[in-house]
């Protein structure tokens, strides 16, 4: 089957049980996305699938023929970091770093959702600020951080959003 990952096309011949996460890590040598819980509960495996953030541990790669995937490796490089990577560095948005690729991919997907005006569970009123601190926290609640580095992630994301 065919999959485009970070703008590179791959022809893959995989066991049908292979998840997108395992395809990335074990077959394409892209180990940025992490295996945390492997049950969709922690968000460490978050990548962008056709532009939308998903838990790659629950995606069967066989069902994603011709899909486009972006992982943390495709967002930025050490020389040219993505604004979110810059923000996480500037604001110390991590400690051990294990959840960070998932946090950053999730934030990238989240900012796109905000751009499209999607509401969240805390959105209220007709002209709400979709990037207030409570909004950022709610929208990022699918990504857990064992170190509890949450407080610094909020300004990191706000900076990346140009706020």
């Amino acid at each position, binding site marked *: 089957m065919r999959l485009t990952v970070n703008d590179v096309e791959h022809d893959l011949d995989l066991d049908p049980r292979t998840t997108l996460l395992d395809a990335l890590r074990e077959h394409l040598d892209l180990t940025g996305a992490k295996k945390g819980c492997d049950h969709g509960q922690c968000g460490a495996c978050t990548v962008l699938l056709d532009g939308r953030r998903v838990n790659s541990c629950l995606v069967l790669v*066989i069902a994603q023929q011709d899909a486009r995937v972006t992982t943390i490796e495709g967002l930025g490089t050490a020389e040219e970091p993505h604004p979110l990577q810059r923000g996480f560095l500037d604001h110390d948005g991590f400690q051990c770093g294990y959840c960070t690729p998932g946090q950053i991919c999730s934030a990238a997907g989240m900012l796109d959702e905000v751009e499209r005006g999607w509401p969240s*569970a805390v959105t209220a009123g007709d002209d709400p600020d979709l990037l207030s601190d409570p909004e950022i926290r709610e929208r990022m*609640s699918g990504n857990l951080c064992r170190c509890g580095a949450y407080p610094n992630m909020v300004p990191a994301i706000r900076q990346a959003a140009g706020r």
Partner: protein
Amino acid sequence: MKTFDYRTADRSSAGLAPEAMFLAGGTNLVDLMKLGVATPDVLVDVTKLPLDGITERPDGGVRIGATVRNSDLAADPRIRRGFPVLSQALLAGASGQLRNMATTGGNLLQRTRCRYFMDATKPCNKHAPGTGCPAREGDHRNLAILGGSEACVATHPSDMAVALAALGAVVRVDGAAGERTVPVTDLHRLPGDTPQRDTVLEHGEMITAVDLPALPFATRSAYRKARDRASYAFAVGSVAAALDVDDGVVREVRLAFGAVAPKPWRATVAEEVLRGRPATEESFRAAADAELEAARPLRDNAYKIDLIRNLTAAVLTRLAGEAR
């Protein structure tokens, strides 16, 4: 995980091999396959079918395709405006990532989160009929107070389904015997002595859409969910409601409870009590109590009675305030 064949679904190919299962977003099914609780031989992927539209109906209702993703449905302007309870219920569930994958059909048919059900090494009448129900004596803090049986006290975990029950939604189904419709409130079965069957669907019947009938007063509707964390956790109790008040009196009301029963629990007794009564907190509490008279809590889940009464009063009081 047991290995399986994969194919994409064909709308006309009604009829599914005995060990085949439909795959949608996979957020529940793939998890259960990893856990060894679901062991399909064949996965039939419904997501490539043209069932991902949200369309307005001539009667003012809305048809939601079975493969519409939960996040797209929650963000749809027609849903936000006309049926806010549904948008709120969706947004109260799971996470941004999961909602991007989860579909309308899969959300309705997700299985219980009872910990024994999700552990293939444990006895459980739902995943291994006849092995018993360890939850009765064990961990049932989040299981049913309504509609359970000696054999099973599982709760249905969906938030979306609770809103759909309140809205009187109808599920469209396609199978070997042709098309049929099932009200959402009749989709899930009570367990009785056959808890292995969650719903009235026959094997191979596919959900194609969910219809929301026109309900003008649903513009004033809301969902409230109580859970163990501020976000990203299943409900321990929830209430979906729509309220039509005229001159301080309840003209019409729709009410459903979540996380208290094997199905989204439409509170018809409470609705009946409320019609024609003053729209006051006192009435709302009395109505909740009338519905909850049927509750049969276990050792560790009687708290849900107070919780549901309080949630009902809070949601309806707020909606009544907005009507003023």
